């Protein structure tokens, strides 16, 4: 034996990642094929590969304007939430951290609530006021949190605690708005805060795309996150700057998540659990676990959304409910089966 053991483990991980990557187009095809309106598989193929052929215009619109953008949006949102989640867990070295820890989701919800209840928005126009306001307040919340943390030296505790402070203050503000809201506004707000992909269309898809692009530079920090596992001092002696890594990773993650949340609402759970599932199947090395989390996030959210659409069709379930029902059993199973604990 020599390095071969490691090489073997690595190739096993690469195989798992490849399989997950292959699964994405499969799940995508399923998501596009199923729905309230039954469309013949051959018709779907014709619509996709020969979109100019003059077929059933309703089927064409359902596929191209509803199902495809929605499935793509699920992939992007899921991958973004899961990648930011694992990055933040890594830089903050805490398993309870999710992409919403630094105050993004409650900030966004408050922005949405302002727009819904008071009709007030600082930026944006027309149908986009809720989205624009949510984005603005998501950024405000996480920037305040990171600014406070920066004063305290950007330690992981300071980031987490100032994020929690933002979460509480914005949730108090939301409660206040809910108190004065009228019934229809309240319903709209509650619905927004559950998060869903039902409003997916091409223009929203273009707006959400930057989020996944912002996640790409995070992969550059995989080795920094690896070295942080050994503690700050070792990380530093290995050439990692912990404060800088934490700052850059937190800002990028928060920005990516803010983009997703303002468009889909806060879809919880994925950003917390996809990273854990990823670590359980490919180990802690962030080069593999980040990639795995990225792929799993996309797959879980897409399949959850597909199930949410069809399980009691024509009624749609909130996707957050389905992600929990789908992800928790998988997570618990892997947790019980795991030879050892990743976090303690």
């Amino acid at each position, binding site marked *: 034996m020599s390095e071969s053991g490691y090489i073997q483990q690595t190739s096993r991980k690469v195989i798992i990642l490849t399989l997950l990557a292959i699964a994405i187009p499969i799940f995508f095809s399923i998501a596009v094929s199923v729905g309230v309106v039954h469309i013949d598989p051959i018709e779907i193929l014709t619509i996709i590969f020969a979109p100019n052929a003059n077929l059933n215009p309703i089927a064409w619109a359902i596929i191209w304007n509803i199902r495809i953008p929605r499935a793509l949006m699920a992939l992007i949102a899921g991958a973004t939430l899961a990648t930011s989640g694992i990055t933040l867990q890594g830089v903050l070295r805490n398993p309870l951290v999710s992409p919403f820890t630094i105050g993004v989701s409650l900030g966004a919800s408050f922005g949405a609530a302002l727009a819904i209840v008071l009709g007030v928005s600082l930026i944006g126009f027309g149908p986009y006021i809720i989205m624009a306001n949510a984005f603005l307040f998501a950024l405000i919340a996480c920037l305040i949190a990171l600014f406070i943390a920066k004063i305290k030296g950007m330690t992981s505790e300071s980031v987490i605690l100032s994020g929690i402070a933002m979460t509480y203050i914005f949730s108090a503000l939301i409660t206040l708005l809910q108190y004065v809201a009228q019934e229809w506004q309240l319903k709209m707000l509650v619905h927004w805060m559950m998060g869903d992909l039902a409003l997916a269309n091409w223009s929203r898809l273009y707006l959400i795309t930057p989020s996944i692009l912002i996640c790409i530079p995070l992969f550059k920090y995989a080795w920094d996150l690896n070295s942080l596992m050994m503690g700050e001092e*070792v990380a530093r*002696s*290995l050439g990692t700057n912990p404060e800088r890594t934490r700052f850059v990773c937190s800002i990028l993650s928060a920005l990516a998540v803010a983009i997703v949340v303002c468009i889909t609402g806060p879809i919880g759970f994925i950003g917390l659990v996809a990273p854990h599932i990823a670590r359980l199947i490919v180990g802690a*090395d962030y080069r593999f676990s980040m990639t795995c989390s990225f792929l799993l996030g996309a797959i879980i959210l897409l399949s959850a959304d597909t199930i949410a659409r069809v399980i009691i069709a024509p009624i749609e379930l909130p996707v957050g409910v389905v992600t929990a029902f789908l992800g928790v059993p998988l997570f618990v199973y892997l947790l019980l089966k795991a030879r050892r604990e990743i976090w303690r």
Partner: protein
Amino acid sequence: MAVKILVKGVSISYDGIEALNNVTIEFMEGKVTSVVGPNGAGKTTLLRCICNILKPKIGTVLLDGSEVSKLSLKEIARKIGYVPQIHSSHVPLTVFEVVLLGRRPYVNWSLSERDLKIAWSSLEKVGAKHLANRFFDELSGGERQKVLIARALAQEPEVLLLDEPTSNLDLKHQLEILGLIKNLAEKHNLTVVMAMHDLNLASRFSDYIVMLKNGRIFATGTPSQVLTAENIREVYGVEVKVLDTPHLFILPLRMLP
């Protein structure tokens, strides 16, 4: 014999308390130097200064004549390996993965065959090849210390800094680890600086001793020059008997009021 590290007029303070005060000292290439002194004398601070984890307010640290603070973090990491005393309590990696972290200053994403070879030979140097596929958390204290030294060796450093490498180890492992360190210094011309509490072990395995008191250099020289009853009384406030039975042996007698 060449000077590897020159600490020149370094002062550093945390929250107004001076940890090092105008410290000037040389460390010789390929030699083992132990830094001794009571708790809070500035041993760890000195090590952190050398590898630029702490940046001194006044003074400089020179490595082969060039200022450490002017090097990038990665450049420092390629020259200086540091094994701190406090480690993350939980490391979810295998031993081989931990050692591979030592290649961090050289890689961007993927590891080359050469990186794997170097990690493997580092593990071989500390005699821990058989542990490669175990999880780091499952190891005993002595095994962990070996792996952590291997991790630092994988950085291919010229200087190895160790903060109390034998604390929490049993007698046999203390001898094993220190013998290993001494051997590495001799065989690979590695300059070793370690903070030590146990004066007997320090004298047994070091070429030079640096004695610190309240952040100042109190004495430097060979073990028999520095570890005298007078110096120890002065620095530690303890009455000792120093026996010179082939090896130096320091027997603590009583605390001084």
